[in-house]
C-alpha cells in the first residue's frame, strides 16, 4: 500500500480510538471532558520515554502508560466528578493544561517544549486496525449491557438514576477511567507512528476535535461516531485544508449540529451485525432471483 495512505489510515485509526473513549464519557454518560487529551499525552510520553530511556519494549510501555493514566485518572476523577457538569469540564481542562505544563517544565525527561525526537515507527496499520476493532467491541458491549443503560440514565436524570439504585459516582468514575485507557492507548500509538511528540500536540483544540466528532456523529450512536470520526479525520487530509480553516469548519459544524440536530447526524441509529448479514443475504437472493428469471 501507498505509505502516505497507510499513514493517514493509521492516524485515522488512532483518532478513532480516542474518539471511542470520548463517546463513552461524553456521548453516553454526558460528561463533557477536556481531559482526554491529557491522558493521550500521558500514554504518549510514558511509552516514548520508557522506550527511549529505559529500553522498555513498546507493548510494556503502552501498558505502563495505561497504568499511569489509571492512577492519575483515579485522583482527578475522585476530585472532579462530584462537581456540576460545566465545572467538571473546566476542571478537566485545568488538568490537561497542568499535564502540558509539567511536560514543558520537566524538560530533563520530556525534552521540554521541543518534545521527544527519534521515536521509531513501530506502529503498523494492521496493529492499529486490530486495536481499534477490539476497542469497538468493548464499546458495543458497554452500550448494550447494563453499563450503557446506567450511563444513559445518568446523562438524562442523575437524581432519578440514583433513586433507581445506580451508584452514579461509581459508574461515572469507572467510565472516566475506562475512557482514560482509550486515550492513553491512542497516545502511545500516536507516539510510535509520528517519530516525535511535543506538548503542543496535546492542546485543548485536540479535545475540541474529539468533542466535535462525537456531537456530529451523534451522542447515542456508536455507528455515527465512528463514521464522523473517519469523515472528519480523512476529509481535511484529502482536501488539504489549512489548519486554521479546518478548525473554523469544525467549530461551525458543531454549532450547526447543536442547533439543528442536537442528537447528531445519526440520531439513535445503530448498524448491527445482523443487519449487515441481512443485506448481504438479501443481495445474494435478489441476484439469484434475477439469474433464475433470466434462465
Amino acid at each position, binding site marked *: 500500500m501507498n505509505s502516505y495512505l497507510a499513514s493517514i489510515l493509521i492516524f485515522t485509526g488512532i483518532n478513532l480510538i480516542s474518539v471511542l473513549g470520548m463517546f463513552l464519557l461524553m456521548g453516553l454518560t454526558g460528561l463533557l471532558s477536556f481531559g482526554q487529551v491529557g491522558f493521550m499525552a500521558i500514554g504518549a510520553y510514558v511509552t516514548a520515554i520508557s522506550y527511549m530511556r529505559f529500553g522498555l519494549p513498546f507493548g510494556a510501555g503502552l501498558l505502563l502508560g495505561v497504568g499511569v493514566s489509571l492512577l492519575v485518572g483515579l485522583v482527578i476523577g475522585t476530585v472532579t466528578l462530584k462537581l456540576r457538569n460545566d465545572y467538571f469540564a473546566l476542571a478537566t481542562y485545568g488538568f490537561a493544561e497542568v499535564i502540558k505544563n509539567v511536560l514543558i517544565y520537566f524538560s530533563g525527561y520530556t525534552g521540554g517544549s521541543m518534545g521527544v525526537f527519534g521515536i521509531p515507527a513501530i506502529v503498523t496499520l494492521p496493529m492499529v486496525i486490530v486495536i481499534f476493532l477490539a476497542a469497538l*467491541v*468493548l464499546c458495543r*458491549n*458497554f452500550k448494550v*449491557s*447494563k*453499563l450503557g*443503560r*446506567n450511563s*444513559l*440514565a445518568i*446523562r*438524562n*436524570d442523575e*437524581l*432519578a*438514576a*440514583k*433513586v*433507581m*439504585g*445506580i*451508584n*452514579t459516582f461509581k459508574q461515572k468514575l*469507572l467510565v472516566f477511567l*475506562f475512557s482514560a485507557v482509550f486515550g492513553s492507548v491512542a497516545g502511545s500509538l500516536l507516539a510510535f507512528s509520528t517519530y516525535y511528540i511535543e506538548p503542543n500536540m496535546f492542546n485543548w483544540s485536540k479535545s475540541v476535535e474529539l468533542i466535535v466528532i462525537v456531537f456530529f456523529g451523534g451522542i*447515542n450512536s456508536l455507528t455515527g461516531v465512528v463514521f464522523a470520526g473517519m469523515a472528519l479525520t480523512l476529509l481535511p487530509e484529502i482536501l488539504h485544508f489549512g489548519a486554521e480553516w479546518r478548525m473554523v469548519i469544525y467549530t461551525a459544524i458543531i454549532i450547526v449540529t447543536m442547533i439543528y440536530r442536537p442528537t447528531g447526524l445519526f440520531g439513535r441509529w445503530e448498524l448491527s451485525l445482523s443487519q449487515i448479514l441481512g443485506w448481504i443475504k438479501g443481495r445474494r437472493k435478489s441476484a439469484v432471483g434475477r439469474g433464475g428469471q433470466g434462465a
Partner: protein
Amino acid sequence: MKEQPKTLLQMNNVTMRFGGVVAVNGVNINLSEGRLAGIIGPNGAGKTTVFNLISGVYDPVEGDIRFRDQVISGKSPSEITHLGIARTFQNIRLFKGLNVFDNVKMATNCRTEYSFMEGVLGLPRVWRQEKESAAEVERYLELVGLLGYENTWPENLAYGLQRKLELARALATKPALLLLDEPAAGLNPTEIRELMDIIRRIHKELDMTILLIEHHMDMVMDICEELWVMNFGKVIANGDPEHIQREPEVLRAYLGS
C-alpha cells in the same frame, strides 16, 4: 391472641428545613409490613418531602428513619433502593434517552451481579443475566398494561401510560416498600379505576407494602387501609379511612375553616 404485624418503616420525629421553610416538622410515621397506606394533605403540606426523606434524596436535619430496624437516614438514594425501597415521582421523571423497555430494564440493574469488566468483555454471565432481566421486564410491563410499547420512547407515550411506566420501573427494583407520589394525578376516571386495580394486584400478588400520596379522596378512601393526614409539615391525624373522615382537624385543614 392476634399476631402483631411487624413495623417496616419508622420515622421518628423527622424534621426537614429549606432555608426558612420548615417543610416537614417532627413527623412520626409507623408503617406496618403488608399495609396499603396513604398520605393525604393540601398542596405544600410536605408530603413529597417525606418521600424525598425516605428515599434518601434529602437527609433530615432532625430525627431518624428506620427501615426494618436499620437506620437509613443519611444513606444515599441508591443504597436505600438496594435495601428495598422504590418510588415514583410526582412530576414524572422517565429517562428520555431510553425506550420503554430499557426504562424498566435499567431498574433491574441494581440486582444484576456482573461487574464492569465482565460487562465490557461481554462474558456469558452477562448474557444470561440480561436474558433473565428481559423476561422480568416483560412481566412488569404486562402487569401495568404496557405490553406492545417496548420500543416506544417515553416522551411519545400518552400521559396516563407514562405514569404506568413509572410504576413498572419502580416495581422492577423488586422493592419491599413501594412509594407512589400522586400516581393518579392527571388521569381520567377510567384510568384511575384501572390504576386502582393495578395497585391492588401489586399489593396482593407481589406482596408489597405500599405507601401512596393522593389527592383523589374517593380513591384513597377506597383502597387505603391506613392514612396519615399532613398539614403545614405536621401529621395532624392518623388512622383508618372511616376514622379520618370524622376527624375535626382534618375537616378544618381541608375546608380551611
